């Protein structure tokens, strides 16, 4: 009995130590981002565009605007497609298309983000002969689609079948049931899934490297190269200039704040729904 008790205590000690050790790098990362990011942070940074190479100062406003624009555009195509595909997977389970769709989406979800960037390069940058914000948004939409499909399907699965039957019994067509009962009544839950997908996509760098490429000027022209926050951080962080490295840290802080704001508001949407 004693041996078993000692074994038990040793095991608990071991697991607790592992947990502590796990927390160390995680906390260190958070601490470093906060301190390094905050030390170089200023309003000027998020309101200005970069100055000429070698000149101190300047900001990353162009990258923030580019990121927001690219992600907004990406969600414009990805969200409707994702929700429709999610509805299909949950409502038309016996269709012949279900298996191919699921396989295609699983493949897309598992594709490394750099390969997704190459996909978008092949279908948009090559024919248009120019890096463009448009290609970047298509690349990001390929990342958003599988996530939105997954969350939509999970949410629709939770809706009781009786609700659908009630609609059909009232003489609704199946499309009306889908639109009025499944989508419109559960739009907040669906929105949460979308926002979490956007939060994840906001920080993606690899798909933008050779689609949106990067730009040191403020631009809203979707047909030309466009700056984005993650790519800007990458370029600045790997540069030898101290000033740029500091800006990269602040950029990272801004990026993380954007990501957290998106996921936080997703959680708020859910809690508002629950209160009602």
């Amino acid at each position, binding site marked *: 009995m004693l041996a078993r008790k000692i074994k038990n205590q040793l095991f608990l000690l071991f697991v607790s130590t592992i947990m502590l050790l796990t927390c160390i790098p995680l906390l260190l990362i958070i601490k470093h981002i906060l301190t390094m990011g905050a030390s170089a942070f200023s309003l000027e940074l998020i309101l200005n565009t970069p100055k000429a190479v070698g000149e101190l100062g300047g900001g990353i406003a162009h990258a923030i605007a580019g990121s927001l624009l690219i992600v907004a555009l990406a969600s414009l195509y990805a969200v409707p497609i994702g929700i429709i595909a999610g*509805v299909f997977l949950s409502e038309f389970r016996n269709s012949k298309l279900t298996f191919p769709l699921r396989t295609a989406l699983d*493949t897309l979800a598992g594709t*490394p983000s750099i390969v997704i960037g190459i996909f978008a390069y092949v279908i948009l940058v090559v024919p248009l002969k120019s890096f463009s914000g448009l290609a970047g948004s298509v690349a990001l939409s390929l990342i958003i689609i599988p996530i939105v499909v997954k969350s939509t399907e999970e949410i629709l699965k939770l809706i009781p079948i009786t609700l659908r039957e009630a609609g059909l019994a009232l003489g609704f067509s199946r499309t009306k049931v889908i639109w009025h009962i499944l989508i419109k009544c559960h739009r907040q839950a669906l929105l949460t899934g979308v926002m979490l997908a956007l939060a994840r996509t906001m920080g993606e760098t690899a798909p933008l490297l050779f689609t949106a490429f990067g730009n040191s000027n403020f631009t809203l022209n979707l047909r030309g190269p466009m700056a984005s926050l*993650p790519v800007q951080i990458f370029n600045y*962080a790997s540069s030898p200039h101290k000033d740029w490295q500091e800006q990269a840290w602040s950029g990272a802080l801004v990026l993380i704040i954007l990501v957290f704001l998106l996921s936080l508001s997703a959680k708020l949407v859910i809690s508002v729904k629950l209160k009602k």
Partner: protein
Amino acid sequence: MNKILFWNEEKIGISLIKIVVVLLILFICTMILLLVHMSLPAIKVFGLSFITNSEWNPVEEVFGAWPFIYGTLVTSFLALLLATPFGVFSALFISDICPLRFKGILSTLVDLIASIPSIVFGMWGLFFLAPFVRDHLAPLLREIPLSGPLFSGPCFGISILSASMILAIMILPTISSLTREIFNAVPTTYKEAALAIGATNFEKIKLSLLRPSLVGIIGALGLALARAIGETMAVVMLIGNTPQVVLSLLAPGATMASILANEYAEASSTLHLASLCYIAVILFAITMIVNFLARILIRVLSPKW
């Protein structure tokens, strides 16, 4: 009249949904085919020996993928090796051992780390992890007896080891949260049964938590491995991007994802671009296979409660 309208609406709506679905499937297939098409020149010139050839020379147009495949395999498996004990046992701690009031904080911390973009991990690695490896870890590792060529040569911080370590930190939350889900799916009655026959906490965990979820955990590790194989930005910043096959973990290397990120935008010749596309095809195939096997483990082979 009304009836006709009713049926039409339903038919039109459903066929619209189906059209979108078919287009989406076709779009995804087209992309994959186009990628293979882009790599055809390289496939024609080098064939399958592309995989085993270890020379990568854009100037003389000789391309081989072995250094990158080797780099990807070494970094991702080393990352998995480093992250697995931490991921699995932290999940165990959070789901079963930890007092209730810390449960929320710890799981939030782990989820928080999972939501940090990989570029930020890369930057942290470049400015904090690489110097740490260079100044503290490398001298220590060199002292290990019988390590042979594993920790030999100079270390500038940017190395295969640093890249593996940052990958390990990045896949740790993935492993931890997937494993936690698997643990939570085990029925409570199993644990109660173990406790009822007088098992200690350790025996309970071993018999009624770890053993039934073993297959699922291996599946979760597979998904994490796939993530590590495809991870780009953090690795680009920490591995040094030197196409070479060396045993020493302290030397720089390159992975399939890192060479794509580095050279794709600048590739000028057709053969160079095609070779990079060929690497993308190989990378895509490897992640697909790993993901597929992991999903089979999780969906089909693990027990249904």
